[in-house]
C-alpha cells in the first residue's frame, strides 16, 4: 500500500473471506488488528502466507472491540499462542452484555482469553508507537488505534466511509459515539483504516468524510 509500506490490509469484500477488515503491520514485532471471525482466520492466514508472513510471527493482536466479527478469532490466536489485547472496559462487557449480542445472533458466546488489557496511552509494538484512544459508542470499550508516525487511524467500528458504527446493540450509545467521532476528528489524519468498508486516503478525503458524517449521519442518530 503506497505510503504505508509495512501495512497489509485485508479489506472485507467477500462474506466468505471475512466479515471485517483485518490489518497487519509487519516489522520487528508484527501487529494484527481485528482478527475477525474464528472461521475465517485460516483464510486470512493463507493470504498472509502468500505475502510471506505466517501467524506465529505475530507479536500481538489487538481487538478494537469485542463483537464476534472482530474479536472471535482471538481464541484461535491464543492457541498459537499470540497475545491478544482489548480495552479494559470491553472485557467485562463481553462477559455480560455481549453474551446477549451473541445469543441474539444465534451464536454461542466464546470466552476468549485476553493476555492483557488496554487503556488510554502509548502502545509500543516493535518500532511502531500507537496511541490507544478509548472511543465508546459502538460498544462501551471500543478503541481506535492512532499511528502518529503515519498519520493513520484504525477506527474499528467507530466510523467508516460515509458512516458510523451501529449503536443499537447491547452497550451501544449514540451520544458517546458522536463524542468519540468528534474527538478523533481533531487528530492529524491522512489515513482512515476502518473496521468495514474502504480505506480513506488523503487529508482532504478524511476531512470530507468527517464533514459528511457530521452533516448527514449525526442528524439521523
Amino acid at each position: 500500500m503506497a505510503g504505508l509500506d509495512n501495512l497489509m490490509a485485508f479489506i472485507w469484500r467477500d462474506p466468505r473471506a471475512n466479515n471485517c477488515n483485518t490489518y497487519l503491520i509487519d516489522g520487528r514485532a508484527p501487529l494484527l488488528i481485528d482478527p475477525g471471525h474464528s472461521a475465517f482466520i485460516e483464510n486470512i492466514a493463507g493470504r498472509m502466507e502468500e505475502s510471506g508472513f505466517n501467524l506465529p510471527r505475530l507479536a500481538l493482536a489487538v481487538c478494537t472491540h469485542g463483537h464476534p466479527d472482530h474479536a472471535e478469532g482471538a481464541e484461535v490466536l491464543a492457541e498459537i499462542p499470540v497475545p491478544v489485547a482489548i480495552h479494559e472496559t470491553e472485557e467485562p462487557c463481553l462477559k455480560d452484555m455481549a453474551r446477549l449480542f451473541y445469543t441474539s445472533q444465534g451464536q454461542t458466546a466464546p470466552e476468549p482469553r485476553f493476555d492483557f488489557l488496554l487503556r488510554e496511552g502509548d502502545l509500543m509494538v516493535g518500532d511502531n508507537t500507537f496511541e490507544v484512544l478509548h472511543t465508546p459508542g459502538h460498544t462501551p470499550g471500543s478503541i481506535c488505534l492512532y499511528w502518529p508516525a503515519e498519520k493513520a487511524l484504525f477506527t474499528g467500528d467507530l466510523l467508516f466511509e460515509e458512516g458510523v458504527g451501529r449503536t443499537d446493540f447491547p452497550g451501544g450509545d449514540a451520544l458517546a459515539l458522536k463524542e468519540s467521532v468528534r474527538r478523533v476528528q481533531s487528530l492529524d489524519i491522512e489515513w482512515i483504516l476502518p473496521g468495514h468498508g474502504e480505506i480513506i486516503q488523503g487529508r482532504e478525503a478524511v476531512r470530507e468524510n468527517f464533514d459528511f458524517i457530521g452533516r448527514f449521519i449525526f442528524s439521523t442518530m
Partner: protein
Amino acid sequence: MGEIKSTLELVMERTRGMVQSREEREQDIFRERARKAAVLAEKHLSGETGLAAFVERLDALSGREPGFDARAAARLHLARTLPLDGAEGKTALAALACLGSPHVREMEEAMEKMAGETEEAEKQAEARLAAELAGRGISGSAAVLRPRTDPGYEKARAAIRERARARIARLAEAAGQDTPRAGY
C-alpha cells in the same frame, strides 16, 4: 394370614432398643446451642447485627442455656471460619477481640503476612508478564498487565493462603482447647 400393622407400630417395632445415651443427648444439645452461636456470628459478619447487639445476643443465649458459654462457642466458630481477607476478616478479628480470644494478635499477624506475601507474588507475576511482553517488543502506558490471571501467581497465592489457613486453624484449635466443652 399376615398381620396388618400401622406405620406407628412399624416405627415403634424397628426403633425398639434405640435409645440415646445421656452423653449423646448432651452432645446433641450442645451442638444445637453451638449452631445458634454460629448463626449469631454469621449474622454479625454479614452486617445484619452490630458488635454490641451480637455480644448481647450471645449473652442472652448463655442465659437461656445454663452451663453453655455462647461467647466461647462463637469465638471458636469465628476462628475456624475466619475470612482471610476483606472487610469480613477485619470484622471477625474485631469480634474475636471483643469476645476475649487470646489469639487475635497472632491471627492478625498471620493475615498480614499472607497479605504481604500475596502482594509480593503479584509484583513478581507483573514483572514476569512485563518481561514476556518486552521480549515480544511490546510496552507502553496503554498496556494493563493482569498478574492475577497469571497461572504462576494463582499457584503461589493458593499456597500462601493454604499456609495462612493452616496457621489460623492451629490457633483456632488452641482456642478450642482453652475453652471447656467448646468443641463441636
